[in-house]
């Protein structure tokens, strides 16, 4: 099992759900409105006057065999709309119940 943390511009939400459905990744937890900014180029998403856009975040638990496909699809989506911002980070799940 892998955990994937996806932080993305709000507008991506439906596209990401779409990708998860296509890849049959069922389990996820999402936060509809979060703030944050990217390390290099990412525009801040603060929901303030200066930076009005907002981000969402999602924690997805996938089986190891689906991870590559998921990251691949996500990076394609990001490449398609680079200005919105989308990042994903994955790590191992050592135990679960």
């Amino acid at each position, binding site marked *: 099992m892998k955990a994937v943390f996806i932080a993305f511009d709000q507008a991506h939400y*439906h596209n990401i759900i779409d990708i998860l459905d296509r890849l049959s990744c069922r389990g996820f937890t999402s936060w509809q409105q979060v703030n944050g900014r990217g390390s290099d180029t990412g525009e801040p998403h603060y929901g303030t006057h200066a930076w009005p*856009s907002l981000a969402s975040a999602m924690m997805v638990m996938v089986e190891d065999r689906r991870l590559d496909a998921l990251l691949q699809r996500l990076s394609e989506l990001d490449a398609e709309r680079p*200005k*919105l911002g989308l990042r994903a980070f994955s790590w191992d799940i050592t135990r679960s119940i």
Partner: protein
Amino acid sequence: MSLYGGAVKRPIMTTLCFVAVVVLGLFSLSTLPIDLYPDIETNTLMVMTTYQGASAQDIEQNVTRPLENTLNAVSDLKHITSDSRENISVITLEFEYGKDIDVLTNDVRDKLDLISSALPDDAETPVIFKFSTDMIPIILLSVSATESTPGLYKILDDAVANPLARISGVGSVSISGAPKREIHIYVDPARLEAYGLSVETVAQIISAENRNIPGGVIDIGSDTYSLRVQGEFTSSDRMADIVVGSSGGRNIYLRDVARIDDSLEERSQTTYNNGERGAMIIIQKQSGANSVEISDKVLKMLPSLQKRLPSDVKLGVIVDTSDNIRNTIDSLVETVMYALLFVVIVVFLFLGRWRATLIITLTIPISLIASFIYLAITGNSLNIVSLSALSISIGMVVDDAIVVLENVTTHIERGSDPKQAAVHGTNEVAVSVVASTLTLIAVFFPLTLVTGMTGVLFRQLGWMVTIMMIISTICALSLTPMLCSLLLRRVNHHGRLYTLLFTPVNKGLDGLDNGYARLLRLVTRHKTVTILLCMATFVLSLMLMGRVGTEFFPTADDARLSVNLELPIGTRVEIADSVTSRLVAEWREKYPEIQVINYTTGTASSDNTFASLSDNGPHIVSMNIRLSDPGDRERGITEIAGLMRRDLLAYPEYKKARVNVGGNMGGMGGQASVDFEIYGYDFAQTDSVADRMRRMLASLPGTADITVSRADYQPEYQVDFDREKLAIYGLNLSTAANALRNRINGYTASRFREDGEEYDIKVMYSPESRTSLADIENILIYNQQGRGVRVRDVGKVVERFSPPTIERKDRERIITVTTVVEGVPMSQIIQQATAEIDRMDIPQGISVQLAGQYEDQQESFADLLLLAVLILILVYIVMAAQFESYTYPAIIMTSVLFAFSGVFFMLYLTGHTLNVMSMIGAIMLIGIVVKNGIVLIDYISLNRERGMSVTRSVIQGGRSRLRPVVMTSLTTILGMVPMACGTGQGAEMWRPMGAAVIGGLTFSTILTLLFVPALYCVFARNGIKNQRRKHHRSLRAAQKSAQS
């Protein structure tokens, strides 16, 4: 869920909601009546009391004064004015605006009940009239007749007036110029005396003979019959056989002492239409009825009425007010359509995409149509004010939608799907959209709170614009994102036509952006110079302020002139007729623009209320002229009026002449006039002041038609009875005076009934026996014992002069000197005249005041200025709340100064005056121009929050916000262009408003784009310096504490 989230998710519901609004709006539109002005609730009541035969002074003493003293106690009274003239007292009560007139009417009625017993016995019960715009006749019909003239009244009453009065909505139909039938019993005084009879006895006998008396019921056999005595005369000549007395055992018949004359009223008004004798039919509408609808019905009915009339009687239209209303409304509708077209073109050029243009422009009809629902619910009409509100709003309702669409587009361009972009894009700007609408509402909502005349007019404007703004904001936050999610595409494919059309446009706009950025760089480098230059222009415009004249309302060309002419008092009506017919012939030849010219002379009978309300008398001529449509002629109405005034100078027969432009519409639309009120009891003194005033005004340039309200002294004969002698003969003054009245004025003995109509039977001396003073002196008055006494034995007949109309205002005698303002602004005349009055030597006890339109203007201007201050404060509050700062709103508010400069420049250039309309324009500007500043400052401060330097923020912000600022300003300016350049009927009214908005907005947009960034730099630098200083201070304090 948010409004926009829901709207995007449920497009069908959203669409149908707006469809429902549009359907309701269109339904409301179909029910809306058309009118010229909003329904102005009356604030005036008139109390009319007739007292036949009394002179002006009698009326003043016995009727007007007691009534005034009692009525003065009614609450909310602003002014009480009165006219006491022969036979009638007219008291006008002017109340504060906005009070319930029904309650006031009841108060007045209660007071009248209190006083009515104290009035002279012969005075009729005071009648209360509510005067509102509804009272102004909506149609004047002309009637020409030749052979049918003697019976014209009955013909018209039966065949025209009655059918017209049956039309629903028609209030009253009165006929003037057609004398009524009256049966005169002309007695011969010598024969009466010979038989020992008096006028009173004859009259009482006639009345006693002309009776139908029911005699009860009688049972005969199995039936019950009613018993009646039918004694009423069946024809007028039957009266000749009445026995009025006996002498020497022989019956004396009425024919022995009198002549029966079954003809027309002795004194009545005559009317001439286009030089031919005829009559005039005056049609008034019921309160609240729609003039246009009624006039349509009346005009439709005319051909069928014409068929029922004898062949020599012809009907025509002198004045149809609905014509003017229809033309005015048509030209305003045209204005609204042009405004719509211009706005659509601007939006299309700036956005360059038809889908976006469609989304934006859809907001316009929806907001506009929704406002019709408000009009229908509140029972208002489509009128100048409501349509101007539409025209004004067209440019503003798109602003919110544009902001939303722009942001949604940015999101789409960044890669969002249209649906997501619509929700998130709208979410980001929702607050600022609401805030900018609030600033506009802060301007327009207070308009609904203005009191007075202006308030009545502009309350509707305030409500309409407020409602349209709210609807447009709701639209921008629901319909616009919904449509964006459906219609906008992530990738735009442009056709060849687009490239061809928009490449130069885009290049131009880019060039503009770059040019402005360069200019901003220059401005930020030379801030002080920029600020000084801008302030200098402002100061310069203030100097122009003195050169722009002021007036109350602009003069409108409604193709209608009314002319009041007065010959020397006491002139016989025949002379007035002949002089006026000469004048009419000259004018008809000289002015081909005249379509119908109609005039009326003579004394109105007391039962014709419309005629007796206006000035009338044998020497007074009142004329109505209808000109061809303003578009069809070269000379304007004021020019023609001016020429007519010059023509009248060649008629020395007329003592007074007045040419009124625009009929008599009250304060609005007519040519401006200035009233000088001279208060004082003494006739001689006030007359001399009035005369000096008249001469002084005549010497000023731009004055015309100077009239002194007090007419000349009317020569009259007075009978001075000697009370002692009267007492010796067992008479008292009122018996003696009534005897006189019955012989000269006539005693209405009874009424003759024929075909369901009643005609007065008047007993009086025959005309040939009342032609000299000796005839009066020889009048025989009988006392209780039946002994006759001649007037000359108990009194003297003397000739005296008395003023024909005694005018009073606020219970003091008054003369009003009025001058029409021709070709110069009203303010100029007022300035010069007040300077002259100060130099005049005015006797003690006499005071001179400026009133009339000037008073209205002062009140309205004061109201509007107060309103402007209120609006400025409200707008500041809204902006300060939005920016959470005291400084930014202050910077933005400076654009208001330039808006006012622009207004003055524009008014000066176009030659318009500062009047209520242009002031309303200037007030609207407060809301419109600050929006530019808000957009600019908002983006500049956003840039700074994103970490840019002050200068860079200003240049970047300015560059990227130039287009929205220019676009919203252009939509408003171009939306106003049709108003400012309108040539249709009534366009004179709103032209100054259009000019003021265009001038103010253009000027302020240009200067705001330079001044606001410069000022921002200064304030921002100071802010930074202050912060640095504070920081250094705290650092130093920290160092010190570390050292110690």
